[in-house]
């Protein structure tokens, strides 16, 4: 498979021994294509950083293999792998200047002086830091340090760039800017990016594909749109965006809500009995009582500016959140206590795997 820049095969990692042993990665397999912007997304402790460090060569798997361009690099030390990392803490060398930091990798590779200088200049220009070349890294702002770390990792033109939550230390505005910047850099360099984050919005806006991880396992791999609209299980649905989980009954390939009517969600013909249906808050419409497939009582309304969140209670006491786009007047025309009927946008209701 020549298209795969990186492939992880059946990777497991166990920290500690005996009863204290922790399984950080549990038989993880993933293939990442050349030129892809691939994101490992999950809560802290899910194993995403461990997997990243394994690709970089800082950790070795307890079992399994790492392949780079089809070749097994599992036992290759980090300094022999054409893979570079942007560290969460940036890890800029405090005793070197900005330019010396960027040149470091090229010098270690024994590149000729002229080439080192030329590439360093080009990289500094790429991250718009050409004015700062002679500064000490401690004199830079957080955003500038971030750019130096990027330039330093990109300078040796690695096959794969690994980014370990690189934006987590920046404030919101800067983070938004850097997200765009990162996409631009990836586009310009054509290098495969593997990005680790726990921020689902960051993952959705930047990635070509996302692997959602939890408890050492990959829960789902797919394009952002697929992950959001077709989560395979409760974890993925709950971790990415807000979701309502509704109890339902499956029979003959059709799904009927508990305490309500049928939905257009489909289920494998063999499956029957109790299932969970996931529906995004913005895919629910509120109508008059008796309309739609689910009766509910409006409990509370909270105005959020662009939209208004409606909190409703079902007959069995469970809660549903609905997100309505606020109209020009700001008033959605509903009062708490109102009896309503809920209907779902076509194709929005999803039956979860488990």
């Amino acid at each position: 498979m020549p298209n795969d820049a990186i492939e992880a095969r059946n990777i497991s990692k166990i920290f500690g021994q005996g009863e204290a042993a922790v399984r950080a990665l549990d038989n993880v397999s993933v293939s990442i294509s050349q030129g892809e912007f691939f994101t490992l997304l999950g809560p802290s402790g899910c194993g995403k950083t461990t997997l990243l460090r394994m690709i970089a060569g800082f950790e070795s798997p307890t079992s399994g293999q790492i392949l780079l361009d089809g070749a097994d690099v599992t036992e290759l030390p980090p300094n022999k792998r054409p893979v570079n990392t942007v560290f969460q803490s940036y890890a800029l060398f405090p005793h070197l200047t900005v330019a010396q930091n960027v040149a470091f990798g090229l010098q270690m590779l024994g590149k000729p002086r002229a080439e080192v200088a030329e590439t360093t200049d080009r990289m500094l220009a790429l991250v718009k830091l050409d004015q700062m070349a002679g500064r000490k890294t401690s004199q830079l702002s957080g955003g500038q340090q971030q750019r130096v770390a990027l330039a330093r990792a990109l300078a040796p033109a690695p096959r794969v760039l690994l980014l370990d939550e690189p934006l987590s230390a920046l404030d919101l505005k800067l983070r938004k800017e850097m997200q765009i910047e990162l996409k631009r850099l990836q586009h310009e360099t054509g290098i495969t990016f593997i990005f680790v984050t726990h921020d689902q919005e960051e993952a959705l806006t930047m990635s070509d594909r996302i692997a959602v991880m939890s408890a050492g396992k990959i829960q789902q791999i797919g394009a952002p749109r697929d992950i959001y609209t077709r989560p395979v299980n409760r974890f993925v649905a709950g971790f990415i965006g807000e979701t309502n989980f509704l109890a339902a009954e499956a029979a003959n390939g059709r799904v009927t809500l508990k305490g309500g009517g049928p939905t257009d969600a489909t289920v494998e013909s063999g499956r029957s009995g109790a299932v969970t249906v996931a529906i995004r808050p913005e895919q629910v419409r509120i109508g008059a009582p008796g309309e739609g497939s689910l009766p509910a009582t409006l409990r509370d309304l909270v105005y959020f500016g662009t939209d208004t969140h409606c909190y409703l209670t079902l007959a069995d006491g469970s809660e549903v959140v609905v997100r309505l786009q606020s109209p020009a007047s700001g008033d959605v025309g509903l009062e708490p206590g109102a009896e309503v009927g809920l209907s779902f946008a076509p194709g929005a209701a999803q039956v979860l795997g488990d």
Partner: protein
Amino acid sequence: MANRAFSVSRLPGFTVTALAVFAILYLPILTLVAYSFNASQSVAVWGGLTLDWYGKAWANDHVKDATLRSLTIAVSASLISTTVATLAALGTTRRKPFKGQTFIYVMINQPLMVPEIVTAVALLIFFASIKIATGYQGLGYLILAHSAFCVPFAYLPIRARLEGMDFSLETAAADLYASPWQTFRHVTLPLLGPGIIAGSMLAFVISLDDVVITEFVKSGGQDTLPTYMLGQMRRQLTPEINAVSSMLLALTVALLTAFFLLTRKKTN
């Protein structure tokens, strides 16, 4: 202090005691220095300012000899102990705890735990038989003994520096194609520099100040500055000793000030 009315941390008599302690701590040292400039032989009489005693000390061949020997030993011991301590610090920090690590700690810190007189006697016994066996009487014994008891003093600041160092920097270097040796040469060593300098300075001061072990290990005519001074104190006291003491004191204080500035920079 904003609140004069009631300070919770104030305890009666503590401030007075503390200030008295500081005064008493410095008074004798200042007296000693002051009398090195006293033109009169006697402490009882202030005969005006003079630098004569420094001149006398400078012209004294015994002092010159002992100073040179002290410096030779201190420089050698500092170099040797710092080298082995740097290696040991690299070997015992920032790696997965391994079997025998505690043993290494205990060995390295042993000179801090054993009373000097005990080490001195043990070395006297050990070196006496070597002296008989080999006939060698040189400075080597003193250098070896000093190097050994300086190890923990060199080791501690280097280890502290290593532990305070950001591990991810070396990870980053490895990521950027630096071999382990290149990582050490270009990242670890430059960052470790202040720790190594601080350690070697501490070792130097400790070696320079040693009395007990030197007194027992030295062969005839191998006086260092402190053992020479100790010998003189038995005899007649002249302000010449004050002059020598003051010079040694000045050197120590200068080195220690530099040491504190070096180690403090790290925390900034």
